[in-house]
C-alpha cells in the first residue's frame, strides 16, 4: 500500500513540475513580449527622433514620413505594454514614467519641427535619454521579475526532482524489502510445510506402530483369555480324579484307618476341594471377558434385586439390613453387574462386626459418571491395604475365620472396568468400609430415567 502511495506522490509531483515548466515557459514568453514592445516603442520614438532631426537640418518635408508613422505607433505600443504589465503595480508606475517621458519627447519634437532650431535638439536629445532610461527601468523590472520567477521555479523544480528522486528511491527500497519479505515468507512457508510434512510422517509412523501394538495386544489378550479358559477347563479333569477318588477312599475307609490317616485324607480332600474352588473362580474370572455379552440398557435396580435374591439365605441368616436408593439405568450387562453387587454385599455380610449388619447403597451423579457407594458397618480394614484387596486371590483375613478364595473383589474390578468405570475402597479398621465404583452415564440419560427419543 505504501508503494502505491509513493507512486501517487511521484505522479503528483511530476504533474506539478510539468505545470511549473509550462508556467516558466509562459513567463519567458511574456517577458519576450514586453521586451519586444519595448524595442518597438524605442524604434518608433527613434524614428521620430531621426526624422525630426533630419527635417530640422534639411527642411525636406518627405523626411517626416517615419515621424508621422512613429508618432501614431508609440501610444498604441505603450498601451499594449501597459496591458501586458497590468498585473504588476510596480511596472505600472514605470510605464507611466515612460509614457510621461514619451509625451515630453513628443512635445519637444513638435517644437523642433516647428522651429527647426538647433537649441531644441539638445532638449530633444535629453528627452530621448529620459525615454531610454525609462525603457531600461521597464525592461530592468521585467527581467528582474523573470529572474525572480525562474529562480523560484528553479528551486521548486529542484525540490520536485528531489522529491521524485526520494520517492523513487523509497519505492525501490520498499520494493526490495517487499520482495525480500515475500521471499522470506515464501521461505518461512516452505520451511513450515516441510516441518508439517515431517510431523505428518512421524504421526503416520506412530499411528502405524500403535495399530501394530494394539493388534499384538488384542491377539495376546485373546491368547491369554483362551489360555486361562483352557487351563482352568483342562485342570478340571485331573481335579475330578483327585477329589473324586479321595472322597471314595474316605467313604470306604472312614473310621477303619488310624486317626493319622483319617486326618491326612481329610486334609487331602480339603486341599482338592480348595483347588477346585480356585480353578472355578479363575474360570469365572476369565469368563468376564470371554463370555461377556454386549453392553445394553440395564436397570441397576434389577441387578441389585438379583444379587439380593441370590444372597437371600445369607441375608436372612445374618439378619442383615440392606438399604438402597433408586439406582440409575446404565449401559451394561445385568448378570455381571449383579455379580458385583453380590460380591460387595456378600463381603459386607461375611465381614460383619458385632452389630447387626447394615449395608447402605447410594448413588450420585459426578459429571459424566454415576458414583455408587456400598457402605457397611463391618470389621473394616487398614486403608494401607486398599489397593491389595483388588488383586486376584489376595486375602487380608485368615482362611479359617473367613472362607473364600479372595477372587470376589478382583472379579468386581474386572467387571467394573469392562463397563468403563473404576473401583476403590475406603475403610478404617473396626469402623466398617465403603466400596466405591463408577459407571459411565448413558448418553441421553438424566436423573436415572432414560430419555425416550
Amino acid at each position, binding site marked *: 500500500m505504501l508503494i502505491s502511495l509513493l507512486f501517487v506522490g511521484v505522479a503528483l509531483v511530476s504533474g506539478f513540475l510539468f505545470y511549473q515548466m509550462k508556467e516558466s515557459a509562459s513567463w519567458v514568453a511574456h517577458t519576450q513580449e514586453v521586451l519586444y514592445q519595448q524595442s518597438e516603442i524605442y524604434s518608433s520614438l527613434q524614428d521620430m527622433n531621426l526624422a525630426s532631426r533630419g527635417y530640422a537640418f534639411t527642411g525636406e518635408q518627405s523626411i517626416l514620413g517615419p515621424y508621422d508613422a512613429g508618432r501614431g505607433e508609440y501610444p498604441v505600443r505603450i498601451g499594449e505594454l501597459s496591458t501586458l504589465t497590468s498585473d504588476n503595480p510596480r511596472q505600472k508606475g514605470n510605464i507611466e514614467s515612460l509614457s510621461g517621458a514619451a509625451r515630453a519627447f513628443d512635445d519637444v519634437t513638435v517644437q523642433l519641427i516647428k522651429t527647426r532650431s538647433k537649441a531644441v535638439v539638445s532638449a530633444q536629445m535629453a528627452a530621448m535619454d529620459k525615454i531610454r532610461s525609462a525603457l531600461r527601468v521597464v525592461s530592468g523590472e521585467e527581467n528582474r521579475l523573470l529572474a525572480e520567477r525562474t529562480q523560484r521555479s528553479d528551486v521548486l523544480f529542484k525540490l520536485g526532482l528531489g522529491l521524485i528522486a526520494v520517492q523513487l528511491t523509497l519505492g525501490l527500497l520498499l520494493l526490495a524489502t517487499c520482495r525480500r519479505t515475500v521471499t522470506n515468507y515464501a521461505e518461512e512457508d516452505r520451511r513450515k510445510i516441510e516441518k508439517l510434512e515431517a510431523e505428518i510422517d512421524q504421526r503416520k509412523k506412530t499411528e502405524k506402530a500403535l495399530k501394530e501394538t494394539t493388534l499384538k495386544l488384542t491377539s495376546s489378550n485373546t491368547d491369554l483369555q483362551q489360555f486361562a479358559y483352557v487351563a482352568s*477347563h483342562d485342570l478340571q*479333569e485331573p481335579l*475330578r*480324579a483327585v*477329589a473324586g*477318588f479321595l*472322597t471314595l477312599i474316605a467313604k470306604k475307609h472312614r473310621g477303619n484307618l488310624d486317626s493319622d490317616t483319617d486326618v491326612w485324607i481329610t486334609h487331602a480332600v480339603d486341599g482338592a476341594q480348595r483347588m477346585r474352588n480356585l480353578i472355578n473362580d479363575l474360570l469365572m474370572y476369565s469368563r468376564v471377558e470371554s463370555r461377556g455379552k454386549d453392553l445394553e440398557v440395564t436397570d441397576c435396580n434389577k441387578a441389585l434385586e438379583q444379587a439380593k435374591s441370590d444372597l437371600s439365605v445369607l441375608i436372612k441368616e445374618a439378619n442383615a439390613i440392606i438399604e438402597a436408593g433408586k439406582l440409575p439405568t446404565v449401559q451394561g450387562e445385568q448378570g455381571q453387574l449383579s455379580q458385583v453387587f453380590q460380591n460387595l454385599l456378600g463381603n459386607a455380610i461375611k465381614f460383619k462386626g458385632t452389630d447387626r449388619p447394615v449395608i447402605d447403597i447410594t448413588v450420585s451423579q459426578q459429571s459424566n459418571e454415576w458414583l455408587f457407594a456400598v457402605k457397611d458397618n463391618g470389621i473394616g480394614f487398614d486403608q494401607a491395604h486398599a489397593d491389595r484387596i483388588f488383586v486376584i486371590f489376595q486375602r487380608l483375613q485368615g482362611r479359617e475365620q473367613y472362607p473364600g478364595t479372595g477372587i470376589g473383589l478382583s472379579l468386581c474390578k474386572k467387571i467394573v472396568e469392562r463397563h468403563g468405570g473404576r473401583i476403590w475402597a475406603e475403610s478404617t479398621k473396626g469402623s466398617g468400609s465403603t466400596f466405591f465404583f463408577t459407571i459411565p452415564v448413558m448418553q441421553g440419560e438424566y436423573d436415572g430415567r432414560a430419555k425416550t427419543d
Partner: protein
Amino acid sequence: MVEPRPIRILMAEDSPSDAALAKEAFKNGKLLNELVIVGDGEECIEYLKKEGQYKDATRPDVLLLDLNMPKKNGLEVLADIKKNDDLKTIPVIILTTSESEHDIIKSYQLQASTYITKPVEFENFLEVAKQIKEFYFHVVTLPPNGDT
C-alpha cells in the same frame, strides 16, 4: 417296575479316571448295570456295529457319550449313530465337561436324548447317576432291545 436284567450301558469316555468314577457312582447309586467302557469314538462305533474286536458285543440299552474324545469325537459318533436305522433308537446321553453353547445345541440338533455336564463334585455325580436310573429305567419306556 421290574428290572428283568441288568441295564447295559455303553460308555464312551477317554479319561480312565472319569470312567472309574462313573462306575463307582453307578454302583453307589445301586444302578445294576453291565457297564462297558470304550476309550475313543472309533471303538464306540465298532462296538455298536459289532465289528472287529467287538463282534460278540451286545447292544446297549443306553449310550453315555463324552464329547471330547480322540480319533472320533462325540458329535461325530452321534451323527453316525443317528444315520443308522438300527442304531438310532438307542438313547444317547451326552456326558461331558463342555459347557459350550455350540456343543449343547449341536448335540440336541443331532438328536441326543439328554445333555449332562459332568459335575465336578463326586457327590453330584452320584446324584446324576441316580437320576439317570430313575428317569431312564423307571420312568421311561425304552425301545425294545433285540439282543435280550
